[in-house]
């Protein structure tokens, strides 16, 4: 494992800052260059990111990473580090070389006000209350789901 782990072997918080703390080349503002780079370019081709699924149907979540010279050993190590206690039903093992890294602030943290893009701008509480009352009235003595759509979207 790495000094710059974001998570420890069993999903515990790691000791140090995440990979974002590493110095990165400044994104170029000139020309049509691709703002997203290969994460593994240069430095650490022997690092494999591991994702684990805790039970069938769960999403794959990032578990941590292993250092291994090839895919075979990476698979063995991922199994021993993230599944030896039967805590996973599936692992994905991804070479860092295959990860596209996007952290350009111009794309992810633009300087202009974006609050109008967030749902928090609309006050829904009173409207929802009124809609629920209407729906409850319409459903009196009735098992149908008429009007349930509004309630369900709350």
């Amino acid at each position, binding site marked *: *494992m790495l000094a710059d782990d974001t998570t420890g*072997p069993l999903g515990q918080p790691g000791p140090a800052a995440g990979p974002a703390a590493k110095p990165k080349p400044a994104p170029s503002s000139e020309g049509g260059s691709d703002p997203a780079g290969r994460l593994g370019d240069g430095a650490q081709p022997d690092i494999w990111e591991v994702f684990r699924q805790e039970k069938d149907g769960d999403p794959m979540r990032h578990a941590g990473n*292993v*250092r*291994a*010279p*090839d895919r*075979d*050993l990476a698979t*063995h*190590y991922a*199994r*021993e*580090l993230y599944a*030896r206690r039967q805590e996973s039903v599936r692992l994905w093992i991804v070479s860092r070389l295959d990860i596209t890294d996007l952290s350009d602030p111009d794309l992810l943290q633009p300087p202009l006000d974006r609050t109008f893009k967030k749902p928090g701008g609309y006050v829904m509480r009173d409207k929802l209350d009124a809609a629920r009352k209407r729906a409850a009235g319409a459903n009196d003595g009735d098992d149908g789901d008429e009007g349930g759509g509004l309630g369900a979207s709350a």
Partner: protein
Amino acid sequence: MTATPERRSTRQLARPDLPRFDTEELDPPTREALSGLLLTMADDEFVLGFWDSEWTGIAPMLEEDVAFSSLAQDEIGHARLLFEMLAQLRGSDADDLAFGRTADEYRHCRLLDHPRTDWAFSVARRWLYDTADAVRLGALRRSGFVPLAQIVEKIRREETYHLMHMDVWMRRLAQGGEPRERLEVALASLWPDALSVFAPLPEEDLLIEAGILAAPMSGLADRHYEQLRGVLSSLGLTVPEPRPSSQDGRDRAKPSESFRWLWGEFTMVHRLEPGATW
């Protein structure tokens, strides 16, 4: 040295992997022959587990350290299961079998009678052993003694994975340079004992008659040798002639000084307070 009855009953509850069985199902001579086989298997797994656990903290890479230690723990787990079955057959206690014997009473094979040595040696030894163990487990898979077939099937699932792990390491070390040289030295010094897992058992005929074991040990040794030859020659490594099993029983008796030291380590706590409940 005797365990309390309370302790035994607690231990029974903690063994969900051991199928229930009736000891009387087997006639006494067959039971004795089976006990002999189980003891060799349990001791092999137990001793390898302790040798390989010596790498904890000092393996070549952190990941390998965790992985190799986990493999070693798996072997102790397999040994536990086999000791439990043996204890039930003999009406004794698994802990006493595992820790309560003198060093001379262990029946691990001579391949496992060497110290850890260097990484190439531990890799080569484990690969030789895991290859043999796969053959042995294969010969017990459809054992007429169904509880044994059942635990063998579970053990096999883990051992298959161990063997894959060791295959990766064999290929890596064989690539060249100093690792290859060390691997060659290790294989040369281990070779005389490579087939010792299949040292004939005194009453193996009974086991074959009873349908417990599929083939005689000598036949399994041949199968094992063919597999070793296939892998070694694919890696361009020397394939020596097979050494026939010694007739003096040395393959599974009279342990080395290295093993006596290891025995002192792994029985240390048990000897402090024999029969203690933990």
